[in-house]
């Protein structure tokens, strides 16, 4: 692999992104409000101020799996001579444009590795996701800002986890050192003008080392698949860990690995779309059947399913892969501070003794 390492000085960041965004759609983390900490990925526009020293409130999931997207369009057509006959025409969504996600964290990228299994591993392949995923590059940044909710190291990732990324960004005192991790990265590297000096590379190395030393989180997940199944019927346990759940959708909406969606039709006059939109397994309506029956009627079953899905069902289905990236967003944003680490950690053990 061509290992030419590039450098972007702080004051050159925007001009570098200006150049890249002429070629690709670029998504960058920006604060959506002054004084506030709500940081989201947004399509890059010249002059934007990036926020690269905080984890984003929402990961870049929406870039590949938008909160709402059309699965196809439909049109009812009427012919003038035979108005009682209306014919439907279907049209697939437009193919995606090449896209770069700039400034994501390793945990954010890890999320996509989970989604890839669901959407692309079969038996059915979601071509809409797959096409967009195919077109998306990740310029990921080494993570140096963990807080008390982070636990990426516990789920097989970490602040320096490069898996799934195409470019690797290391912030140093003067700017950003950028390395290519995949062949797909080369065109982007070519648009970066300044090569990194040895000093830059050495400084980056120190940042990497420092970050790599961080053990973020100490959750043990190796046995959780079985422990979960043993705990499944222990209502007291689930009452203990999720009794306070409000059944809102925050944890799922901010989660990089949550992908569940709803499909609905929206139509105006004779034209419409079948859309998918993020859904949440925390919602009552998610599993509500037409008959009125609901297999997961209360927040306890729903929270249990969420834990089970991430730490038991998913690894069972996908070769041990935990469907959690340890980003801590669900913990940090939970209105009642439910801690999924605690729910998983305490799965083992006899009685529902947890604290």
């Amino acid at each position, binding site marked *: 692999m061509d290992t030419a390492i590039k450098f972007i000085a702080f004051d050159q960041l925007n001009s570098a992104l200006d150049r890249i965004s002429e070629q690709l759609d670029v998504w960058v983390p920006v604060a959506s409000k002054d004084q506030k900490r709500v940081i989201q990925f947004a399509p890059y526009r010249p002059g934007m101020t990036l926020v690269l020293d905080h984890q984003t409130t929402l990961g870049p999931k929406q870039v590949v799996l938008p909160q709402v997207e059309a699965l196809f369009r439909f049109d009812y057509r009427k012919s003038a001579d035979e108005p009682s006959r209306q014919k439907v025409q279907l049209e697939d969504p437009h193919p995606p444009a090449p896209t770069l996600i700039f400034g994501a964290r390793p945990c954010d990228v890890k999320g996509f590795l989970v989604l890839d299994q669901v959407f692309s591993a079969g038996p059915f392949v979601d071509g809409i996701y797959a096409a967009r995923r195919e077109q998306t590059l990740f310029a990921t940044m080494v993570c140096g800002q963990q807080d008390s909710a982070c636990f990426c190291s516990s789920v097989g990732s970490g602040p320096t986890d490069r898996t799934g990324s195409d470019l690797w960004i290391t912030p140093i005192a003067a700017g950003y050192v950028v390395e290519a991790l995949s062949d797909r990265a080369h065109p982007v590297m070519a648009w970066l003008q300044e090569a990194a000096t040895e000093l830059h590379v050495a400084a980056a190395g120190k940042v990497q080392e420092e970050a790599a030393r961080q053990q973020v989180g100490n959750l043990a997940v190796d046995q959780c698949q079985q422990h979960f199944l043993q705990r499944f019927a222990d209502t007291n346990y689930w009452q203990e860990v999720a009794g306070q759940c409000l059944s809102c959708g925050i944890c799922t909406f901010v989660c990089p690995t949550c992908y569940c969606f709803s499909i609905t039709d929206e139509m105006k006059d004779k034209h419409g779309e079948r859309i998918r939109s993020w*859904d949440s397994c925390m919602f009552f309506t998610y599993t509500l059947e037409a008959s009125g029956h609901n297999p997961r009627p209360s927040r306890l079953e729903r929270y249990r399913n969420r834990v089970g899905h991430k730490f038991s069902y998913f690894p069972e289905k996908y070769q041990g892969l935990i469907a959690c990236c340890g980003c801590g967003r669900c913990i940090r944003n939970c209105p009642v501070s439910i801690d999924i680490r605690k729910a998983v950690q305490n799965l083992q053990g006899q009685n529902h003794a947890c604290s």
Partner: protein
Amino acid sequence: MHAHNPYRPDLASIREVVQETANIKTLRVVFEDESVMHNFSFRPGQVAQLSVFGVGESTFVINSPPTRREYLQFSVMRVGEVTQRIHQLNAGDQVGVRAPLGNGFDYENMQGKDILFIGGGIGMAPLRTLLLFMLDKREDYGDIMVIYGARTPHDLCYQYEFDQWQKANVNLVLTVDNEFPGWKERVGFVPTVLSEESPSPHNRVAIVCGPPIMIKFVLFGLKEQGFEDSQIITTLERRMKCGVGICGRCNIGAKYVCVDGPVFSRQQLSEMVNEL
């Protein structure tokens, strides 16, 4: 199914609508693209997502057998938004169909065995496809008994076919919940009739489909009569959206009803997490 877009239905048109009961209609549909129709193959028990564009999709078993290919048949009970709209459709109207989805019945393992179908109300639909399939290959199977119950005689589907079933040597036991003027068949709930009939579990497979409360008591009854879990087959209802194992909601533990089901043996169910 469209390879790149598993959510995109094939267009089909309604050839005929049959009013089965006050709130159940049967639709007979054909794909508009002749090659799709020609190449379409499925197993009995597999399901389809039926769309009314602008309203949405809903899941129905294809209740015509794979052996009869002039149309696909769906029986639709009016319960919600989509089914309400489906009930307003007429012959000639267009619908979308995504099929086949799900696993279907393991009929290969039923060959040479006696078969017991136990159905309640609209639950007869998935049984019908397998029943007709077996009738079309009658020699492959032993005795066939059908216990079919509904609330009133007017709530029984496929009444117009009962004669044909019986002519094909099916032991058809019909029951309704309460006495009804002019009703000459059995009266009583399906589980009661089952215990009265008490079919032998020997070399027999029982296939059960109906409302949850009926299934619950039928399973209990079958157990009492000595049926093993592996001899009892049922189909699950679950809210489905994508139908292709992606959207997430129809899981029972690690299994997705839309791809791993909807047909499960009681054996399989007992190995899954208890969240029905």
